[in-house]
């Protein structure tokens, strides 16, 4: 029902007190604005982080070695040790819960450049991997192909390189596929240019600066013997990666004479646990956002209620006249509440719009920055916007209720006499 008279009166009442209406509305505006911006920023952080890990198998766990921290079976504490090929074979044939298992060697970065091509040189992160690695941490092929089983079996001297490697080691219009790179003294043929899908980085450095070669090739070509620096596993569907992680730790400790209570020697972590941690963090951020936003909003609402009280006081006589000529208390009450809701909604709407607009601008800016950032798509969803609007209407009603009650508690005769 659209009541033109009601709106006319509301507008003229607000216009008569322009400055005050503005100042009051500002509180509500600011509350909603803050709510939108903070919530959007929190969401952006969440999007950024989740985007960065989405293509990463969430049921994966990682293992590396640290020095032992407990003396055991005649060994001193502080012993250095490594996984080896036999560990992997044992695990492969004895642990049924494993879906993918992918060992890795880190090519040690010597002083100076580890990559040479004619006059060009560079320092890159060189890893020896199995094809299974690409199932745990996804990469896309920009050119050429991805690693396959035959590369590993035949210990082929092939490499897969990131975009930064291409930029550094090749001319702009040069096709890297089929070309050779000398990696720490050994020539490898480039067969694939690859792009990371996730920002989870094992080994540090930029992912675009990665060179991956077959694990077996790395082990033999650089005389690593049968040691393994690191491996990743994923749990089969239906199995918990956390319990798989514990099981593997136990096996590895037994196989390498490490004290069962040595918490340091087998370094490992699982993504699932990290995801849960992140989930809690983001929930925390959202909750905090709402507390602060709603708090600010509440202050704004109190402001509106206050202003309405003052407006009512100034309009006592007018209300008296209206009641003398037949306005019922219900009518007056509706009127004042509608006015308050209107003020709140207007202010809230502007706050909401401006907040969304600024988030959109920020989003545009962030998109132009590429996908390096852990901050992405700062947006609020429809549900959030709707609940903000609902809160506004409800609080508008509450803000109007007290002044409205005050207005109708004044007897019409007293209101008329108010002229003084």
């Amino acid at each position, binding site marked *: 029902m659209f009541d*033109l*008279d009601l709106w006319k*009166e509301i507008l*003229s009442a607000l216009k*008569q007190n322009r400055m005050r209406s503005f100042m009051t509305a500002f509180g509500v505006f600011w509350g909603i604005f803050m709510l939108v911006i903070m919530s959007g920023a929190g969401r952006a952080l969440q999007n950024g982080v989740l985007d960065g890990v989405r293509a990463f198998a969430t049921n994966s766990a990682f293992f590396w070695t640290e020095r032992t921290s407990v003396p055991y079976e005649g060994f001193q504490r502080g012993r250095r040790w490594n996984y080896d090929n036999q560990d992997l074979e044992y695990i492969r044939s004895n642990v049924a819960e494993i879906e993918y298992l992918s060992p890795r060697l880190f090519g040690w970065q010597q002083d100076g450049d580890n990559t040479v091509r004619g006059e060009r040189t560079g320092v890159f992160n060189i890893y020896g991997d199995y094809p299974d690695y690409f199932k745990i941490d996804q990469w896309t092929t920009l050119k050429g192909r991805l690693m396959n089983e035959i590369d590993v079996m035949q210990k082929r001297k092939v490499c897969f390189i990131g975009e930064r490697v291409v930029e550094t080691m090749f001319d702009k219009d040069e096709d890297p596929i089929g070309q050779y790179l000398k990696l720490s003294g050994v020539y490898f043929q480039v067969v694939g240019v690859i792009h990371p899908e996730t920002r989870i980085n094992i080994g540090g450095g930029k992912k675009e600066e990665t060179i991956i070669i077959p694990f077996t090739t790395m082990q033999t070509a650089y005389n690593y013997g049968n040691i393994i620096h690191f491996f990743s596993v994923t749990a089969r569907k239906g199995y918990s990666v956390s319990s798989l992680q514990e099981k593997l730790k136990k096996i590895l400790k037994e196989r390498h004479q490490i004290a069962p209570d040595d918490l340091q020697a087998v370094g490992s972590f699982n993504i699932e646990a990290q995801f849960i941690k992140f989930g809690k963090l983001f929930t925390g951020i959202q909750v905090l956002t709402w507390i602060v936003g709603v708090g600010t909003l509440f202050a704004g609402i109190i402001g509106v209620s206050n202003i309405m009280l003052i407006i009512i006081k100034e309009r006592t*006589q*007018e209300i008296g*006249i*209206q*009641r*003398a*000529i*037949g*306005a*019922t*208390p*219900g*009518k007056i009450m509706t009127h004042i509440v509608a006015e308050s809701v209107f003020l709140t909604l207007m202010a809230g709407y502007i706050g909401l719009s401006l907040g969304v607009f600024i988030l959109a601008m920020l989003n545009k800016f962030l998109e132009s920055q590429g996908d390096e950032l852990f901050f992405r798509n700062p947006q609020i969803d429809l549900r959030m916007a709707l609940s903000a609007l609902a809160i506004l209407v409800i609080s508008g009603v509450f803000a109007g209720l007290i002044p409205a009650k005050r207005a*109708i508690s004044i*007897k*019409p*005769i007293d209101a*008329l006499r108010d*002229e003084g």
Partner: protein
Amino acid sequence: MIKLNDIHKSYAMGSSKLHVLKGIDLDIHQGEFVSIMGSSGSGKSTLLNILGILDNYDQGSYHLGGKLISNMSEKKAARLRNEMVGFVFQSFNLISFKNAMENVALPLYYKGVNRKKRNLMAMEYLDRLGLKDWAAHMPNELSGGQKQRVAIARALISQPKILLADEPTGALDTTTSYEVMAILQEINQAGITVIIVTHEHDIASMTKKVVRLKDGLIDEVIVNGELADFSSQYAREIQSV
């Protein structure tokens, strides 16, 4: 129409009480034209407000159209006011941000009459009071007499049985006052009971009955025929003071 029986009214003044009306008995019939007189502070407005159900009384009884008016809910009082009573005030009490037509139409708005119909009726009443051309003007663009005519139109539009006017000419010059009184006489001739408060004898002498208040009681009631003498008696009073 109006039956007041031993009406008392006092106002609380801090700890003490100000006894304003001390037992008013008054009958006013349908179609009468009554003026209430008395010195300032004698309780004229108080009495009028009680008649208009704007204020309540402490003791006695008040019947309006056969109905006992006592301890009414605000909602009921508002409805009854809207139905039975039209008000005209000394200071016009027009809503400043509404034009003449909208002011006149306001009581119908509270009755739930749709916009088109009530504006049409408002124009009709403005026309009757010779203000058709001023319909779109805001109150601050009108003269005192015009404002009071708008207020009268507003009081009449809900077709009340009684028109109550508290010093309707108090803020107007003599000529304009007489014009307004002529309008009220016309309204009274149409059958509406008109009750005004005034302290001007010439204004009172244009009504058919004068009720004089003194010390919270009715001092004297002068009716129709005696009104002719009223002015001269008043003149004598002035001289003797």
